[in-house]
């Protein structure tokens, strides 16, 4: 990413004749208009949901709609005090946190091994990781439901977090692999020659360099779990996560509950995505190759 930016900057400096986007003012206008139009297409639906969430229940079911929120917190209060919502929110956070810890705890060492060592069997491991991407992973919830009942993990945060970890491990592994690959081996070797053990060199030299990226992939694992619906709906009955709660009560809940619930799903995700925006592309670029 960074390298291509540098290349672009270099290209701008030697003022070779470059075709400007489009050819004339008409082309430039068309280009600008499409940028604006696409931004509107992405942002307006989110805005409309927030308008609904920030209106009173009467306004949500009223017609015609106003296009600005009245900042009446009736819907949100109703949602927050609705039976099961607080519990569902808490479960969502617990499952996502467990997923975050497990996927990085298992994935990061594997990522480090992939980036630093050549060893027989490496390809096998990569194969399993790649295979997870050609498989509809939420379906794993079906056989695992039986397995969990036998082991007492059914309807627990840990059980669901296990399924979400399967979803997040490939990302965690591939992202940490590229993070560690970005740290030159020479840095570690220098630390070794100065008397560090392998572990010390890792902790004092490599870890500080990759920590921001690790944090970003942790947030990423959190979002994966936060957003997952199918496995959550299949595997939890009493301890439902927020998406499971919403999907199971969709056909019985009033509109304002749906919209406030939708906003409760969207807003944290928006915050998280904003927090990791610098890593978004590096991560998806790597993880999907």
């Amino acid at each position, binding site marked *: 990413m960074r390298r291509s930016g540098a*290349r*672009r900057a270099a290209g701008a400096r030697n003022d070779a004749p470059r075709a400007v*986007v489009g050819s004339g003012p008409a082309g430039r206008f068309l*280009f600008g208009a499409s*940028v604006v139009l*696409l931004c509107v297409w*992405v*942002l307006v*639906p989110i805005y409309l*949901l927030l308008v*609904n969430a920030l209106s009173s229940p009467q306004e949500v079911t009223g*017609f*015609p*709609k106003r*296009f600005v929120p009245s900042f009446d917190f009736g819907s949100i209060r109703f949602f927050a005090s609705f039976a099961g919502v607080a519990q569902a929110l808490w479960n969502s956070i617990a499952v996502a946190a467990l997923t975050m810890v497990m996927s990085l705890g298992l*994935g990061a*060492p*594997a990522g480090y*091994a992939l980036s*630093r060592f050549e*060893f027989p069997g490496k390809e096998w491991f990569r194969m*399993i990781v790649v*295979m*997870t991407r050609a498989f*509809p*992973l*939420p379906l794993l919830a*079906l*056989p695992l439901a*039986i*397995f969990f009942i036998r082991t007492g993990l059914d309807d627990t945060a840990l059980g669901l977090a296990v399924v979400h*970890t*399967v979803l997040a*491990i490939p990302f965690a*592994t591939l992202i940490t692999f590229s993070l560690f690959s970005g740290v030159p081996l020479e840095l570690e070797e220098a630390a070794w020659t100065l008397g560090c053990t392998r572990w010390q060199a890792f902790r004092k030299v490599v870890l500080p360099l990759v920590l921001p990226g690790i944090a970003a992939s942790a947030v990423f694992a959190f*979002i994966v779990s*936060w*957003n997952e*619906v*199918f496995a959550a709906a299949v595997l939890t009955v009493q301890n439902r996560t927020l*998406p499971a709660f*919403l*999907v199971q009560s*969709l*056909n019985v809940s009033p*509109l304002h509950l*749906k919209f406030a619930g*939708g906003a409760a*799903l*969207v807003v944290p995700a*928006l915050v*998280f*995505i904003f927090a990791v*925006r610098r890593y*978004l*592309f590096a991560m*998806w*670029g790597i993880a*999907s*190759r």
Partner: protein
Amino acid sequence: MRAKALPYLLVLPATLFLLVFFVYPALQIGVLAVSGPEGLTLRHLQTMAGHWKFGPALRWTLLLAAVVVPVQLALALGMASIVDRLKAGRDTVLYVFAIPLGLSDLAAGIIWLAIFEQSGFLNSVLLHLGVIERPVLFLGYQNVWVIFLAVVLAEVWRATAIVMVILVSGMGLIPKEYDEAGQVFGASAWQRFTRITLPLLRPSLQSALILRTLNAFEVFAVVIALGGTTLPVLMGETYQWQFMLRDRNVAAAYALVILGISVASTLFYLRALRVPRGATL
């Protein structure tokens, strides 16, 4: 000796975890679908295939993927090209385009419900424009095609971002010199796009298409949010059989069907967009 064991020690936890919680249950799906108390049986598959909702669910799922994926690909190519040419404000535009990436399909369904429901924003706009006099029930059971359209819009809105991100990072890998060479030889912008960018983008196109088609077969919460059970899809039926009808064998049979079309489409893309050996960047 220890140095030799280290990589294995590091990879072992993740490997064990994936073997126990991915490989084993994946095989278990197949076992569940064809076994009963009497041993090997096709009963569950027959129950599934004989149910009146199976045919529509399969058809709607395939149709949905067939409509959504090409639209997303075209839109994402457009967005990626725009971002690639942008100079000022590139990061901001990129961030805005990428926002839906972080949203769940359930959230997307609820967002588009706000637009399409009877007292929703689409009806309000139409009323203000004087097109209608009273709100229309768009998402009723007699309007299954409108529900389909709403699902398409919601899916395109939400999941185009991931395709775009993959394509943008793919375009970042293509050396600018290739494009400049095309300019020198007088190729138009369109020619450069179809003859230079697209062929070099093949690996990214491949992974984006595989990812998106698989996700399209897994469509679930958007459909529930917008149409309830009016528009049956495979994943929704799987959920119904597992959770409501408590028949996990038939649910596994459905899972097997989803798995089958996923594998078939992956193999198709791997073949159709094969990157010739030694032709990678």
